[in-house]
């Protein structure tokens, strides 16, 4: 084991004379947080270099230094052996460093084409005159865009009209169109669908063959194998190790990332699954009957029982998010009704949904979940302010005590409960949002892509949490684009296809043990992707 943890510098095979990129001694401090502590990174030409680490390890910060959006306190960057300074993203572009950022950074009011064009003018040959010939550019971009499901007509539409997934695809197309020397992908697959992921990976390989270096941040360790050549692991702002992927196991990577025994870290509770009809005699906790919403949902009906994890499967755009938005009262159903514990409820506002015992961890964290300028404690308490009131007045002490217990319980990494949530790393933000929902003591908790962007450790914790919750009698609705995750957590899965309910797979636990996970997965994918009549 000792050999695999040996840092790059000691492995002659990994240290050719002149790496393409060498970052060394990079430090960056924020108020109260040492985000980077003399971190280093060394990347060769034509290499897919994975950058790994727990949430808040400093991956994004390090890459932001490279892409010119964050100025380091100290440290040097060398490209082709020449020291460079990247003061502005523009310079990064000029040096051929292109980034797909972790947080979506599309420009909503610009068209898809303009988004792709902006900053890529020379690569797309639009430099000619002052006036941009958009049609020419469109013709040039279209084939690549089409690969990622963007039609020609869509190139002319403002990005604001599209969902998160498409925005991600736009960013990928934009980056690929730039013809980069170094491509940085900071969790590019979050929210992507299986086949789009595959497509992206193919492109990554293609770029690699053309000698482009790729730096790739991911929390899906299983994706690394067969794709990445080298992995650098970060922890607490420091570079812990650089290893060859082929000579390392997931388990070892995890222990680099978190220090300690991977087995312990990832120990999932024995999955106690419900099978058949336990708990059903009490009747459904939630009954959704013929819910429709024009253009989005058609006659969706299903039940949710106490202590059950109900997975909703579907391809992107199948209407999963829309369905839970209707449940939460964020959108209005045009027909149908929703009953909770046998009583029909008019859930026309999230406030009512919360009152009825629902809570939701939304899909788009930045847009829909993180409250600007709210501290961790304030975020956790906001949905249930009554609990932190003394004589009708908010009590900061009570609030922080409560917050601290959640911080501990969920392992939220934050300097204090007074820290602003937006300063936390993505995964820790997600945990804070989950804590906010848990704090309302919901009887039905909806997770829309709950493990998006969170590290393996946290993911294991979220999974554990879900199990604990259902064991405690809470019902969970789970949306996860990753079908293996969905299957491993759900007791039952319903399948949406273009707004209609097209199938249900119950008693997943039994089926998985009997037929194997792949078979179940195939069955669900088949239903989910079949074109409806």
């Amino acid at each position: 084991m000792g050999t695999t943890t040996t840092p790059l510098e000691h492995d002659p095979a990994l240290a050719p004379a002149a790496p393409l990129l060498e970052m060394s001694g990079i430090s960056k401090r924020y108020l109260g947080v040492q985000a980077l502590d003399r971190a280093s990174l060394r990347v060769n030409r034509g290499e897919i270099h994975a950058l790994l680490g727990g949430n808040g390890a400093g991956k994004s910060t390090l890459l932001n230094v490279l892409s010119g959006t964050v100025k380091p306190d100290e440290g040097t960057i060398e490209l082709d052996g020449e020291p460079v300074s990247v003061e502005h993203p523009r310079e990064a572009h000029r040096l051929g460093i292109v980034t797909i950022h972790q947080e979506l950074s599309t420009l909503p009011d610009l068209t898809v084409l303009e988004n792709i064009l902006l900053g890529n003018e020379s690569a797309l040959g639009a430099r000619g005159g002052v006036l941009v010939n958009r049609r020419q550019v469109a013709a040039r971009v279209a084939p690549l865009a089409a690969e990622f499901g963007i039609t020609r007509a869509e190139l002319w539409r403002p990005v604001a009209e599209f969902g998160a997934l498409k925005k991600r695809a736009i960013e990928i197309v934009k980056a690929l169109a730039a013809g980069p020397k170094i491509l940085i992908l900071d969790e590019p697959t979050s929210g992507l669908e299986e086949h789009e992921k595959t497509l992206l990976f193919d492109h990554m390989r293609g770029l690699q063959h053309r000698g482009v270096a790729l730096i790739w941040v991911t929390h899906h360790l299983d994706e690394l194998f067969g794709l990445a050549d080298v992995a650098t692991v970060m922890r607490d702002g420091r570079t812990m190790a650089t290893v060859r992927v082929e000579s390392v196991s997931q388990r070892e990577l995890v222990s680099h990332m978190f220090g300690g025994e991977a087995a312990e870290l990832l120990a999932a509770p024995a999955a106690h699954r419900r099978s058949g009809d336990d708990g059903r005699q009490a009747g459904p906790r939630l009954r959704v009957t013929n819910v429709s919403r024009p253009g989005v949902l058609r006659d969706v009906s299903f039940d949710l029982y106490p202590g059950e994890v109900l997975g909703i499967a579907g391809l992107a755009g199948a209407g999963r998010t829309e369905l839970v938005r209707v449940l939460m009262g964020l959108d209005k159903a045009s027909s149908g009704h929703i009953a909770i514990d046998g009583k029909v409820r008019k859930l026309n506002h999230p406030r009512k949904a919360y009152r009825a015992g629902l809570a939701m961890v939304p899909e788009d964290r930045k847009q829909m979940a993180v409250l600007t300028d709210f501290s961790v404690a304030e975020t956790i308490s906001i949905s249930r302010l009554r609990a932190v009131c003394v004589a009708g007045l908010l009590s900061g002490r009570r609030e922080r005590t409560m917050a601290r217990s959640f911080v501990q319980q969920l392992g939220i990494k934050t300097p204090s409960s007074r820290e602003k949530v937006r300063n936390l790393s993505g995964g820790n933000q997600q945990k804070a949002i989950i804590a906010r929902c848990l704090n309302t003591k919901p009887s039905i908790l909806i997770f829309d892509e709950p493990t998006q962007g969170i590290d393996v450790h946290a993911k294991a914790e979220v999974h554990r949490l879900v199990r604990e919750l259902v064991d405690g009698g809470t019902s969970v609705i789970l949306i996860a684009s990753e079908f293996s995750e969905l299957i491993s957590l759900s007791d039952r899965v319903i399948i949406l296809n273009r707004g209609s309910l097209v199938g249900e797979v119950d008693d997943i636990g039994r089926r998985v043990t009997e037929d194997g996970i792949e078979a179940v997965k195939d069955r669900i994918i088949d239903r989910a992707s079949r074109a409806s009549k």
Partner: protein
Amino acid sequence: MSTAGARLSRVLGIEGLPIVTALVAVSAYFALTVPAFVDGEAMRYYLNEEVPVFIITAGMALVIIAGGIDLSVGAVLGLSAGTSLLASMHGADTVVAVLVGVGTGAAFGLLNGLVIVKLKLNDFIVTLGTLNVAAGLLVVLTDHVQITGTQDAGYLAIANTSVLTVTSALLVAGIIVAGLQFVLVKSAFGRMVRAVGGGTAPALVAGIDAGRVKVWAYVISGTLAGVGGVLLASRLNSVQPGMAGGYELSAIAAAVLGGVSLAGGRGAIWQAAAGCLLLATLKQGFRLMGVDPLVFSIIIGVCILVGVIVDRSVFRLAVSLGSSARSQAALPPVQEGRIS
């Protein structure tokens, strides 16, 4: 990083410190250089004069923190003064006259809130519209002429009673600022205001009735404009068309100077009030120094700029002291403060 540096950084990072420091420094400067500045009566007078702006600044700060803007407050204040005084002149009971004025303000606040929230119209333009409506109604109500003279001594006493060396109007203003600040930090409503101001979407997802919170913020702002109007009418015992026009800009400037972010979600009522006090103090100080009014607005403009620049530099300093080697502001790379 030295702990002393860290401590200093923490102190410098305290919210509201810059505005208080500025207020203290400016007051001290005037107190030392302009003898008339410390004259109790002069001070009472200028503070009293500032009461209406002071009150609407509090409401304005609340609306801005809730992510809105209310341009109508000045005109609504004037109109409320008019309705209230007219009611009193026509023999309405003191309480009724007060209620008429405050009610006028509340009604406009409700109108603003409902139109903005229910019809989803742009807040800036809607309140600009109601500004014109209120100002126009005051002209109609007064028929172009200054109205004056209620016989109700009780009504006149509202703003002019002396309570422990300060006037009742000032006292009311102080109570309003303190009360609203208390509401902002200690009540669930206040917390929701901050949440909604930070962003409607996450607030909704967190189960907050963002629409209602916003409507209430406008209602409070309108109501306070009504209160300000009654106090003004009671103090002056007369109302004229065009009264209180332009107060809204002073209120916004004061709020922003006090650190309330126009992007919403951030700031405090007391800081906005301190901003208001700072502007008033500058005005009074320069007035007492006999500064040529022609350069007056130039000086005030420069003071505002210098104030904000110093504020930012202090913040930067705080950040850099907290950082290890090279100073590096944690300010976002791009200013995103905009009118929301």
